[in-house]
């Protein structure tokens, strides 16, 4: 046991003192923060104020557009602004309109006076369309103008039918206010936090497991190439070495998560104020559920053991990083496969797909971390927990066996086909 802990300690120090690890420790949260902030910023940039003018040659539709803008701005202040139309635009002859409009619209640059100019012909109706002049993508404004003009045309049609009161009665806009019966209740907050904590742990599992297991793989190959492996094997059994190495990786993973989650909590409370504090409180509250916490820890550790063992097996069989690449490609594709179904699993965490995917041995911890906050049936929790422990134990044992068999060899690793058949034979024999 002592030797296992010595090896684990050594592996931990070896990984965390690497420059690459420190970069990752800082770089990954930074990348995640950028991934969250940049789309939000881009989205808010797209939702900027849009100013437009109307050249209403019919003289009948500007008031309708003005009313539509007022209604819209009552919901979302100053989203669209109807500006006064310059006389030059009003006087422009049709053949010169484009050149004059360009002066006001620019070439899509920020210093343009208007984002769009709406030209309503004298005989505007369904057969004689209005024109929407703009030098950039203003789809939201165009849809808004189209809807407003459609309503105005319909009102005019009703008016022409001879019932002005009906026309006035039709000039209204329905409002639909979203409501959630559980909003604000403690149970709802805890439910959301439970799902968020578990899904967050699933994503962290994938990131830290792959990141650290790759380092583990490289370490084993380096030990093989420098013959350090012989020295280790003269000091400890293959099983002790493998267990120590995997424990070291688990320690690095947990250390990484503590640093990431801790710094996110601190930064969140400093910069995001009460919202982040509420989320942290919700997460801590969710983790106060002993069953949920135990399961999250169990699935997480089993996931780390499974991924660590897979990469250790690859490292043991490879004489060089180039050899390892031959296995890494297919292995990564297999490991990443559940990501194709993340959206479906999160939408229906207790649906048929999620349930079936939970019983694919290598994926069980990852999928169950995604689901555990959504309260799957107890029988599924028990069976998948047992399956995860069993698969993790089997793969760690297999890693020890592969390490003992291949650690001292420097020949080319076996082909994929012969590897599978060897694996199948040994599984059958056992």
């Amino acid at each position, binding site marked *: 046991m002592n030797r296992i802990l010595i090896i684990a300690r050594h592996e931990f120090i070896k990984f965390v003192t690497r420059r690459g690890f420190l970069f990752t420790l800082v770089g990954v949260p930074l990348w995640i923060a950028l991934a969250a902030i940049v789309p939000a910023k881009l989205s808010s940039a797209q939702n900027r104020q849009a100013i437009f003018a109307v050249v209403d040659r019919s003289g009948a539709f500007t008031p309708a557009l003005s009313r539509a803008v007022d209604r819209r701005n009552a919901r979302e202040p100053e989203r669209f602004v109807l500006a006064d139309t310059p006389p030059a635009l009003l006087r422009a002859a049709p053949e010169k309109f484009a050149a004059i409009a360009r002066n006001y619209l620019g070439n899509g640059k920020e210093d343009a006076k208007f984002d769009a100019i709406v030209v309503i012909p004298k005989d505007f109706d369904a057969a004689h369309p209005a024109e929407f002049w703009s030098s950039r993508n203003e789809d939201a404004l165009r849809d808004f103008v189209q809807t407003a003009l459609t309503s105005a045309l319909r009102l005019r049609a009703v008016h022409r039918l001879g019932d002005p009161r009906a026309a006035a009665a039709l000039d209204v806009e329905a409002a639909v206010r979203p409501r959630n019966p559980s909003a604000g209740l403690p149970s709802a907050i805890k439910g959301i936090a439970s799902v968020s904590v578990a899904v967050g742990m699933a994503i962290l599992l994938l990131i830290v497991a792959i990141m650290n297991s790759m380092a583990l793989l490289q370490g084993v190959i380096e030990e093989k190439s420098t*013959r350090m492996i012989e*020295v280790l094997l003269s000091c*400890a059994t293959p099983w002790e070495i493998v267990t120590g190495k995997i424990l070291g990786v688990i320690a690095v993973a947990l250390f990484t998560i503590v640093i990431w989650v801790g710094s996110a909590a601190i930064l969140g409370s400093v910069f995001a104020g009460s919202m982040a504090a509420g989320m942290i409180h919700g997460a801590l509250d969710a983790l106060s559920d002993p069953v949920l916490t135990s399961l999250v820890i169990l699935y997480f550790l089993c996931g780390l053991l499974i991924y660590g063992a897979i990469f250790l097996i690859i490292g043991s069989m490879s004489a060089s990083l180039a050899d390892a690449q031959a296995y890494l490609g297919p292995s990564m594709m297999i490991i990443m496969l559940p990501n194709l179904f993340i959206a479906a699993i999160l939408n229906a965490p207790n649906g048929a797909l999620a349930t079936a995917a939970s019983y694919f041995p290598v994926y069980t911890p990852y999928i169950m971390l995604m689901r555990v906050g959504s309260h799957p049936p107890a029988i599924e929790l028990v069976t998948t927990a047992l399956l995860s422990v069993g698969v993790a134990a089997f793969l760690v044992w297999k890693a020890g066996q592969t390490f003992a068999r291949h650690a001292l060899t420097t020949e080319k690793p076996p082909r994929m086909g012969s590897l599978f058949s060897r694996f199948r034979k040994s599984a059958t024999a056992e």
Partner: protein
Amino acid sequence: MSDLALELVDVTKRFGSFAAVNALSFALPRGRILGYLGPNGAGKTTSIRMMLGILKPDEGAVRILGGEATGQRGRIGYLPEERGLYKRMRADESIAYIASLKGVPRRDALAKARAFLDRYGLGKFARTRIEGLSKGMAQKVQLISAIVHDPEFIILDEPFSGLDPVNQSEVEQTIRELTQSGMTILFSTHTMQHAERLADQLIVISRGRKLFDGDLNAARGLLPRRARIGADADLSFLKQSPQVTAIAQDGENWTLDLKEGADGRDLLAQIFERRVPLTHFDVAPPSLHDVFVSLIERDRAAA
């Protein structure tokens, strides 16, 4: 307690159909130095791995310090053929890591590592990473890693490999000091002079089998004494001497294999009788190099 530090009894190790070690038997008493010799691919590294318990023999038994190797890890030191060190680790930590795996408490291991580094003139490099050390320095660090936990038996696989003559002498001196403190040492080498100077016992193996087991005198006894004569004249008349079994010429240098018991005085008398002027005359036992080459050539011829 067994008087033997190491005992191999009919040990065989196969890789597929290839027998890397074939019915190998020998014993090494405690406190002695064994020179383990053999050409490349002879099975030295495989048998050393079996001695260390890294590989299990398919047949036969290996006993080290009276028991199985796996139970004696803390009492054995090992220096592998190539540099078995982590490049990015510091010298003192690298030594302490191996020592702690061998059972020395970490704090003591670090203190001992620094004391050993001081003793071997590397004190100021204690905090230097292995990748920053010269090959000679790294070899010393590795040697210290093999002995820092005070083992009773040390296995050194090619300890002189890649070292300059000064560093080779230092390693030789270290090996002598270690045996004076009662340690048993097995070392493999391709440089016969080291084995001649250091080993109490020699084992020569080829194709996984033992060809010779004995001391230096016994090894030299495998080949006749040789007379080396320098003369600007024809010495082929010496072929008729009853003391000579073979004669070879290389320019002015003549080499004559002598019969057992011949000391060369009769040859010198015959040369003086014919008034042949000599540039040199030397009768000496064969070198270990000659014995080794002869053994291996005979083995290959028999294969």
